[in-house]
């Protein structure tokens, strides 16, 4: 189980509290699935890790984030990775090596969080939820401790560790409801010719 910050747990016994708890539980699960699937697509199978691995030192990580906003949800999704994860996934995707701290590494870090929000957005179609997505940015001066206030899931792989963060505001009264998408789902990697 990943970690839900205490102030987001809800579940005070009231209807509103249980709805809030369910909303965050669904987002928590989706965030976890998206992180695992993203890295698996780049040959990096991973498992949940709590607490963060010892190697996950602040000096050895790259963090990118992307903002999103819609009728029901708005917020920021973040992806924090040891540099070894950035380098390994880049090598798997592009087939060449890059250096830690290079513009290529920064660009790839941003692209990964872009693909993470894409996955989340696609999964949320099952709940008839959508939002607009901004362009990703690298977090250079951002205090990492601030991320700990968001929904978060941490993972370890044999090539390093990574964590997904979701800082989200949910519209008052909103509750996730399963709904069959009107159009067929298009998954990552799919090609549709018109």
């Amino acid at each position, binding site marked *: 189980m990943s970690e839900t910050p205490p102030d987001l747990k809800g579940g005070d016994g009231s209807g509103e509290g249980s709805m809030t708890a369910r909303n965050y539980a669904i987002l928590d699960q989706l965030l976890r699935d998206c992180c695992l699937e993203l890295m698996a697509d780049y040959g990096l199978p991973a498992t949940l890790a709590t607490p963060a691995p010892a190697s996950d030192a602040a000096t050895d990580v790259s963090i990118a984030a992307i903002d999103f906003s819609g009728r029901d949800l708005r917020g920021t999704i973040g992806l924090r990775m040891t540099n070894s994860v950035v380098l390994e996934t880049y090598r798997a995707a592009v087939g060449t090596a890059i250096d830690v701290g290079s513009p*290529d590494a920064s660009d*790839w870090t941003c692209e990964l969080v872009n693909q993470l929000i894409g996955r989340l957005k696609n999964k949320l179609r099952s709940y008839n939820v959508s939002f607009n*997505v901004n362009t990703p940015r690298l977090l250079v001066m951002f205090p990492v401790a601030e991320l700990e206030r968001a929904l978060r899931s941490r993972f370890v792989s044999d090539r390093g560790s990574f964590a997904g963060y979701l800082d989200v505001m949910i519209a008052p009264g909103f509750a996730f409801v399963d709904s069959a998408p009107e159009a067929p*789902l298009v998954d*990552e*990697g*799919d090609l*549709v010719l018109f």
Partner: protein
Amino acid sequence: MRGTWFCSEPGNTEFIVAKRVLIIDDSASVRRQVSGVLSPAGFQVIEAADGVDGADRIRSQTDLALVICDVNMPRMNGLDMLDTLKGELAQRQLPVVMLTTEGQPEAMARAKKSGAKGWIVKPFKEHLLLGAVQKLTQSGP
């Protein structure tokens, strides 16, 4: 005829046409990834970093065989770029394939209405991208 004529080997009198593909994506990594798939297959790949640059390249490069375009980009997104160039793309019969993390049917419908010929959700499968490019440029390079 689209493409650039070049001699495949020194002294070879047989000329082949390298079809020119424009990749528009704000991620240099993705542009490199696409180029790494298409270039070995004989395509000549040129790049643009957003919708504004992409529109400029499309207008100035009259010999393009195909455009691959991201959706979420700074300055001008891919769908707005498509709308802007809709008439010109149709007139030139220049196929556009969207390559994006988005899988929303509304966005796909908008792209289709604006003349896009395909939609691929990242991360892409190399053989599917190459197959689509070869199909849409007819017989390949």
